[in-house]
């Protein structure tokens, strides 16, 4: 009995550490310590669990060995993957680690269900209704989070198109699956039947897939944040099932903060969460793609690296606007090289970072931090925009939607209302782009056809390298 109290005290301390850690993660100075604190607390709580009388490890040596094997195996896979994956693939990685957490919560529900059914066969009474409801909630949310994260991963990894996938009657089908799940859940709670529980799990997995398919492009990161919050709630449900305060507190913290974070992310894109999830952005995108044919007849002005190098070297103020293209090309170091070179020549240079530049809010800051670009050269959109009017050159590297004036001027556009960086106010605009293909949102950018715009096609790292050489010569 006293052992149980000690274990629960350790769990309580871990829960407090998680709260402090989340608070720390919200401030740039404390973030790393916050994360380390949470990791340490988790390690202590996991270690204590080996001695938790509820786990009965002292009576089940085989299970103890298998648990350790599973943990070692998990760590051996997770550490190298987390260490070695490129920074650009970070969103996918977070999606996977989130999905497996949801999967674990769902499996806990299933095993608890099997245990209760086994006891019931041996003559024990049917578990209390609320206990089954708790297990079913964990199962449902865990399954949706697992399969939804898997699809988000496949989309971000571009194994299937990153664009929204829509088909006729989509909303109706999703609705029907949702109703079927509710019906099956009620039936499972009433009958405590294992086959019905399995059927609910399968349908929940399907719901995760069809819920995520129509969400595409720049909305996927918001979706991952939402699924992260879902997994938190599934873990809280596991906590209810296992009567474990630590799981309830940790899961709920993540669930609640995750919803708030998701809403902040949607707001950064100038849209509501409901709009992100259900607008089927796709229908508008197809219309935009259809207009491509007429778009191609318009003339764009391309420049040589030498021309642009001179333009940059003799400017007073250059604003670099990085986007996903820079991230894919791993060009953050070359961008810094160019910026440093220009600064040596006495040009004022800063980076203007759109909140959703890259593929996740804050993603671009992480990438540029990797290239040792100091904080004071990074300006957030609200800070950068008042200065755009006085900039001689806006150098847009692999960005498109985040500088598209359609967000300000074209009420019908799917990105209308999204805050953008006002590259159009600079005296000259230089786009480094791979091709004329539209950006993530799949719509044309009038700024590309503007008189003061010059384009340089190619891989961002390559073209930036050429610009470095050209500026040195200039």
């Amino acid at each position: 009995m006293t052992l149980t109290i000690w274990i629960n005290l350790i769990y309580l301390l871990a829960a407090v550490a998680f709260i402090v850690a989340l608070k720390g993660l919200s401030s740039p100075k404390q973030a790393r310590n916050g994360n380390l604190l949470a990791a340490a607390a988790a390690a202590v709580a996991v270690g204590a669990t080996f001695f938790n009388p509820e786990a009965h490890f002292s009576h089940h040596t085989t299970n103890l060995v298998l648990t350790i094997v599973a943990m070692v195996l998990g760590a051996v896979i997770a550490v190298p993957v987390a260490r070695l994956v490129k920074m650009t693939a970070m969103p996918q990685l977070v999606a996977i680690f989130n999905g497996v957490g949801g999967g674990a919560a769902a499996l806990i529900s299933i095993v608890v269900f099997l245990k209760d059914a086994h006891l019931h066969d041996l003559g024990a009474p049917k578990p209390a209704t609320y206990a089954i409801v708790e297990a079913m909630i964990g199962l449902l949310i865990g399954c949706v989070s697992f399969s939804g994260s898997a699809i988000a991963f496949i989309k971000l990894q571009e194994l299937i198109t990153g664009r929204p996938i829509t088909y006729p009657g989509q909303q109706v089908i999703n609705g029907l699956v949702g109703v079927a799940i509710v019906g099956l859940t009620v039936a499972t709670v009433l009958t405590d039947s294992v086959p019905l529980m399995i059927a609910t799990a399968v349908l929940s997995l399907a719901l995760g897939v069809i819920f995520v398919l129509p969400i595409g492009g720049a909305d996927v990161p918001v979706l991952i944040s939402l699924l992260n919050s879902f997994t938190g709630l599934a873990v809280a449900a596991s906590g209810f099932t296992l009567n474990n305060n630590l799981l309830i507190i940790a899961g709920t913290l993540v669930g609640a903060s995750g919803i708030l974070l998701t809403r902040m992310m949607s707001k950064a894109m100038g849209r509501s969460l409901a709009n992100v999830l259900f607008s089927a952005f796709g229908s508008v995108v197809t219309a935009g793609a259809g207009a491509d044919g007429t778009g191609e007849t318009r003339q764009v002005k391309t420049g040589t690296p030498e021309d642009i190098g001179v333009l940059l070297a003799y400017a007073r103020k250059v604003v670099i606007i990085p986007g996903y293209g820079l991230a894919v090309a791993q060009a953050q170091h070359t961008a810094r090289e160019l910026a440093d070179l220009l600064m040596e020549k006495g040009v004022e240079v800063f980076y203007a970072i759109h909140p959703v530049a890259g593929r996740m809010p804050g993603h671009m800051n992480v990438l540029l931090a990797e290239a040792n670009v100091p904080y004071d050269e990074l300006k957030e959109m609200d800070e950068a925009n008042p200065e755009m009017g006085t900039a001689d050159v806006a150098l847009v590297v692999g960005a498109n939607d985040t500088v598209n004036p359609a967000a300000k001027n074209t009420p019908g556009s799917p990105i209308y209302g999204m805050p953008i960086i006002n590259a159009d106010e600079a005296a000259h605009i230089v786009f480094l782009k791979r091709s004329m293909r539209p950006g993530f949102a799949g719509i044309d950018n009038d700024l590309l056809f503007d008189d003061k715009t010059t384009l340089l096609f190619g891989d961002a790292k390559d073209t930036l390298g050429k610009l470095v050489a050209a500026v040195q010569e200039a």
Partner: protein
Amino acid sequence: MSTTGILEFLTIFILAIFVGNEVVSRVPSILHTPLMSGSNAIHGIVLVGAMIIMGTASGAAQVVLGFLAVLLATLNIVGGFTVTDRMLEMFKAKPGENPARAKRANPEDGAK
């Protein structure tokens, strides 16, 4: 568990919602990604639950599913904290403390 038991858990649940909302209410957008990743690691604590059900698992089905649960939860918690640390590591460089930056200051001085 008695009815008072579930009420206690519900109380904790509701309070945790408010705490969760409060702690992240003022996060700057540059930290959105690390925060998402960090909270993703925190829900990896589901590993504790997976261990508890694995400890008492009996029969092939329960053991296999329990094993999988522990494996998946470990991936979540270990991978989550590692990747978050890697992200935050990059934020540590501050102007002045960074050798690459210090080097750059010299040619600038020369130009002036």
